[in-house]
């Protein structure tokens, strides 16, 4: 049956994260925050970070979205804890390459559990869902004004 192909996308770990997202909520004293919107579907994602000694000490996300975007956001928050903005930037580009079908050799090492989202590469319409949270943390860290800004994913991203 054709739906069996869906299992490549909706792996059990992804369904678990979407159902019980990690670090869901808000941080009171965020040092960096950003709201990112995906204009094609209207999804909105908030990401908040507390950076201490140039490392992510706490992170949280909120918003509603599809299974892929929620699971990806949840996994992203797991993976970025304790990382520096420089490391995160590398993770974001690696993630982006992975879901567009060009993962670098050591992508599993760089992305940890989030590499389970590699199946997205076979579902081009869903790449934006997967990358939303990663773009959000990247832009949040680049935004050190401490105030919430709104970002948009462009059509070509």
């Amino acid at each position, binding site marked *: *049956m054709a739906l069996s192909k869906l299992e490549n996308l909706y792996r059990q770990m992804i369904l678990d994260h979407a159902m019980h997202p990690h670090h869901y909520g808000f941080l009171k004293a965020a040092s960096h925050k950003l709201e990112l919107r995906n204009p094609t579907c209207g999804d909105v994602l908030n990401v908040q970070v507390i950076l201490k000694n140039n490392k992510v000490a706490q992170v949280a996300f909120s918003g509603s979205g599809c299974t892929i975007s929620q699971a990806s956001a949840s996994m992203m928050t797991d993976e970025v804890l304790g990382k520096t903005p420089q490391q995160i930037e590398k993770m974001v580009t690696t993630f982006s390459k992975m879901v567009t079908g060009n993962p670098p050799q050591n992508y599993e090492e760089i992305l940890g559990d989030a590499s389970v989202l590699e199946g997205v590469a076979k579902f081009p319409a869903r790449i934006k869902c997967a990358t939303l949270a990663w773009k959000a943390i990247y832009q949040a860290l680049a935004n050190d004004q401490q105030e919430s800004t709104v970002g948009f994913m462009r059509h070509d991203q």
Partner: protein
Amino acid sequence: MVKKMSEYRADFPILNQTVNDEPLVYLDNAATAQKPRAVVQAITNYYYHDNANVHRGVHTLAERATQEFEAVRDKVAKFINAPSREEIVYTKGTTEGLNWVAASYGSTHVKAGDEIVISYLEHHSNLVPWQQLAKKTGAILKYIDLLPDGELDLTSARRQITDKTAIVSLTQASNVLGVVNPIKKIAALAHQHGAIMVVDGAQSTPHFKVDVQAMDADFYAFSGHKLMAPTGIGVLWGKSELLADMPPLEFGGEMIDWVQLQKTTFKAAPWKFEGGTQNIAGVIGLGAAIDYLSAIGMDRVQKHEQQLVNYLLPALLEIPGVTVYGPHDPAKHSGVISFNLAGLHPHDVATALDMEGVAVRAGHHCAQPLMEWLKVAATARASLYLYNNLADAQKLVEAIKATKEFFNHGTI
């Protein structure tokens, strides 16, 4: 010999393919319709035999191209029962038509404090141009409310349309809820108050008989691509006396009458709006699409789609966990059906249906204020056309059940 409705499907080569190893079931017709051979052949013929620029040459090809280009104006006029061919302005689609009314008629007739009245149902292309016009002129943009089932609330319409109203602009058929608005009633209301009635015909023109005189509209815009013509061609119809004193928006070749060093006179409508080389092949394709629809008969198209809705709507409502937006009475619901599955985001639903070969749209359908009104972020949407059949509708129902099953066996 009149063909049976079931026979038209064979005219659409694109439908005869598999997607993700399943036979394609195309249910995204509200986004764009597929093209029959007759339309593609008309365009090919034009390029192979008649291609030339129109209105600009004495040679035979130019003359032929011009004749075909202008003949389509007559076809369109007849198709929507416009009183005159000279009221048919070619555009690139509904969006351009509505923008032109806002930018040309609007900026010369609307002043600060005037009201522009639209509804919560509107597509962004019948909303943002008015929002911009309001911003520019200091006019006030007001919204007609909807009844709980998504139908236009006529009490609210009577409240919102006042003597200050300059423009009322409504969609004839919703691209989300499947409701059809009583344009004639609203037009009467608008005219009582001295306002004009603008109609977005993007979702109605392809599916049932349109009569711009009977509905008493002042402007009517539609897109070719939703009625099987190519993309990039559409029509704005307007009453002669309104078009006559509207300033053109694009200046250049074609639209001029006489150009001198410091001043220019323009052609009359519709040509004064058609600056530059037009989408001639698109116009030819539009003509072929109208011929194709006319040969079937719009009444038969409508009846066929209604029969499918009569099956599909109750079948969807019967599936536990399915929410259908808009009226639940098939008699009040056109072939655009938006729905959600409990606990599932419509994007996940659309991906799952795609794996079953079923193409539906998921998202906000360019109607974010309506999504807010419905209190959802997005919906899935299945939309029918004349080549869809009962098997397509049944396949959608089966695929939705399978999708539910799939996600139920996960942890969701």
